[in-house]
């Protein structure tokens, strides 16, 4: 039985697009990217795929399925993940999925994972680089009733369990968990590998299944705009203003004293 790893990836508008290219429609509470903004794979999700590949580098008898929930274009990020070395892809696309929240996303993904069946390891990016909520991975684990380990910088599978190095402020923890298990991956893992051209070309031939809400046994009321449990109050671009106050003084000592006093007044220190 090959070790079955499922990596979940999300397609997002380029987080590095110039700020001027992303507009917020406050009335509709939506982000409107300018036409030129590219759609890319969420950075941490690419690392989730990389983590899966590193496990497969060691345990050759492993299979990696890449799953993404999104519009039809999200097929591109699945293809990219397959080019990196994933074996099969699953695209979950349905208008009913639109305008959901982290919960509905976790629900859809968990249903898809159950449909795929028999998995050993789930890998997610720690957060998506558009909304940065950072909870879907744990949500899926919860819905599936399996343990989860967060913010991994290294993932290895040994003797039927997973060993994870978790990032801490001052260093890292080493955590062991039984399989099946869900793990969220952080950028400390390193760089996602660059696919060889042959792999890119071959990715086109790999199987990508496309499932709708009905295929997952879900109806519109459970997902998307109807199923969301989060209420978005307001969406806006904060205006940042920088005021710079320069401390006056005859000597550096005097300026430093004044600065300290000023910070005290502002209750910073």
């Amino acid at each position, binding site marked *: 039985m090959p070790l079955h790893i499922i990596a979940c990836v999300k397609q997002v508008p380029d987080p590095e697009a*110039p700020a*001027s290219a992303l507009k917020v429609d406050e009335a509709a509470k939506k982000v409107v990217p300018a036409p030129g903004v590219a759609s890319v794979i969420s950075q941490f999700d690419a690392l989730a795929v990389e983590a899966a590949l590193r496990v497969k580098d060691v345990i050759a008898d492993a299979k990696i399925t890449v799953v993404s929930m999104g519009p039809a274009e999200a097929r591109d990020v699945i293809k990219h993940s397959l080019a990196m070395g994933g074996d099969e892809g699953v695209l979950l696309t349905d208008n009913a999925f639109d305008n959901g929240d982290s919960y509905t996303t976790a629900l859809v993904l968990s249903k898809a994972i159950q449909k795929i069946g028999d998995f050993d390891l789930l890998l997610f990016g720690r957060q998506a680089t558009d909304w940065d909520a950072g909870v879907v991975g744990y949500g899926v684990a919860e819905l599936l009733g399996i343990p989860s380990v967060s913010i991994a910088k290294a993932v290895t599978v040994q003797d039927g369990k997973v060993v994870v190095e978790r990032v801490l402020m001052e260093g890292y923890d080493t955590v062991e968990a039984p399989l099946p298990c869900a793990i969220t991956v952080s950028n400390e893992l390193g760089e996602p*590998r660059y696919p060889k*051209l*042959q792999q890119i070309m071959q990715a086109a031939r790999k199987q990508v299944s496309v499932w709708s809400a009905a295929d997952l046994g879900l109806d519109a009321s459970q997902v998307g705009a109807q199923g969301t449990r989060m209420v978005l109050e307001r969406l806006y671009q904060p205006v940042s203003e920088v005021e710079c106050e320069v401390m006056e003084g005859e000597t550096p000592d005097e300026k430093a004293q004044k600065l300290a006093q000023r910070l005290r007044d502002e209750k910073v220190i």
Partner: protein
Amino acid sequence: MAPANEFPGNIFFYLIILGFGAFFALTVIMRLIPFFQAKRVSRLDHLPERVRDFFLVMMAQSKFFRRKYWYSGILHVFIFWGFMVLLIRSLNLLLDGVSGEISLQHLLGNVYTGWRPVMDLFNVLVIVGVSMGAFQRAFIKPERITINRDGWTIISLIFLLMVTDVLGNSLEIFLERGGKDYFSFFAFGVANLWDRVGLGVGTAEAAHTVFWFSHLVILFAFLDYLPYSKHSHVLTVAFNVFFRSSEPTGVLQPIDIEGIMERAEEGATFGVAKVTDFSWKQMLDFLTCTECGRCQSNCPAYLTQKELSPKAIQHAGRLALLANTPTMSSILRLSPSLPRTDGEPPRPIDTMGFDSIWDCVTCGSCQYWCPVMIEHVPTIMDVRRFLVMDEAQMPETAQAALMQIEQRGHPWRGTTFTRSDWMEGLEVSLFDGSQEYLLWVGCSGSLSERNVPITQALAKLLIQGGVSFGVLGEEEPCCGDPARRLGNEYLFQMQAQQAIEIMNAKGVKKILTACPHGYNVFRNEYKQFGGNFEVVHHSQLLAQLVKEGKLRPKQGEEQTIVYHDSCYLARHNDIADAPRQVLASLPRARVVEMERSRKTTFCCGAGGGHMWVEESKGQHINHARTEEAIGTGAGVVATACPFCIQMFEDGIPALEPDEEKRMRALDIAELLETAVAVKTEDMIGASDINLSMGGDEVAPSP
């Protein structure tokens, strides 16, 4: 008349010829085997130019008449022309050995006798040349040449050939076998010596036989030794010059990606994985390299203490090639030592090395200086393509740049500009087929902070000069050049095809660009994918507008400007006068030159994708060039390339911490715009533009 005409001489004669001849023939056959396994390329185009260059470069030795290596130039011209001239003597020797009836002396009579003084003169010149060479190896020892036993063997063999020739000739004159040859001054002088010492006829005849046979043996030994020596160019250079690429030097050839995918099962690779993936011409290059080192001494990577030496690359190619060539037997051990191979022969990447392959900035200086027309850059790039596309092995910074182009459609990660921000406040319209030129702004021209003011200055000049042009705006893709230079041919082809499609759909016929890399790609490489456009560099158009009086530079402060030639403009595409004409038109500006200028310009360091790749070690190439520019004492360095100017903007503060004393770096468009002082109600001067969307800084005032 020859000592070989009668027994036992004739036995020796035929034994020598057959023995050495067979050895030579076998060697050549073995050496040719990998050539038949190599990639096929056709080099039969432009035949008149090939014939012309054969005479110019090889027969007339044009590449040796450059001041930089004048000493070697003289000695080589002596030796080579001597070799050509004395071929007649060798031929005569062979024919005479068979029978006096068919010797050239007999058949051509006085014509041959008339040629003898010329050959005699060249006997002397070759000896002079060889002596100059020996002196160079023994005492001058320039760093570029390889001083080894092989080199000394060649020098000795040539010297001995000349000595036996002269002595044999002198004895023929002495014995009056050659007729009254008074005009072979040197040989005649030696003949007089024999007279003076009272040499007996018997001794003279014996001595003549000795020298005659010695010359024959040394001649054949030399021939047989050649393939095993770094001097093998003697046998290959005629072909190497004739079959050189007729395209401009900045051009790289496309790969048939689909075709290779189909043959992937058989082990086909996109780049060069094994030595037989090279073309026969590239293999010929390896065998033609004489290790003179001119390439190395002019390579910006080598000169800044990096791993890369173009000479070492050729040598490494030769090693890989020889490891894939059957050998007569390893007993002979005449060839330079081969790497020991247990099993698989070494691949080019093994002999050349990862760092060397990535150090190359594709400036083409190596090819400019190479006297035997070796094409170093495509060979390096073919291995780079293997590393990137087949192995996905590249420096992190290169990988990041390629990912940027793939995902974002441009290499400038972190830019806060959009492609149309620069247009704000300018009367620039989108290209709709009605305008004469498409102004291709480029990723650098629109997204890189330093280059936006240059694009704006150019646009203002074009408007002022009444030029009909339009832009693609947000629709403009990346031309793909960085992808190709970084080795990702697949990504390049996708970008190129996309760009060509867009341009053809809009009916673009003429492209105007301020970027030499874009110029090179559009003019010389897009035709590989069906994109045929007329391409103009902004320096050419600006020079023309000034000449026609449509732009009138009328104001300017006194300043000294040094012009830096971009490799892709001056060396690869022969554009060096136009930018200078623009600078010459600036009132009260004095233009100075660096020593390394025009075709010999020194790279700014950003070529070959290195705008985005960290240098491996050593001095920064751009610091070296900035140093040279500062050394002229000029207050301004002028460029005509978006990469070059960024390299100077980085190098200048690094070398001069005091802001007051710093040299300024400016594009010729910025300099001209200041002089023309474009000012209309609709246009805003560059110094007034506040790029509030793009950043907090105001554009530097020219």
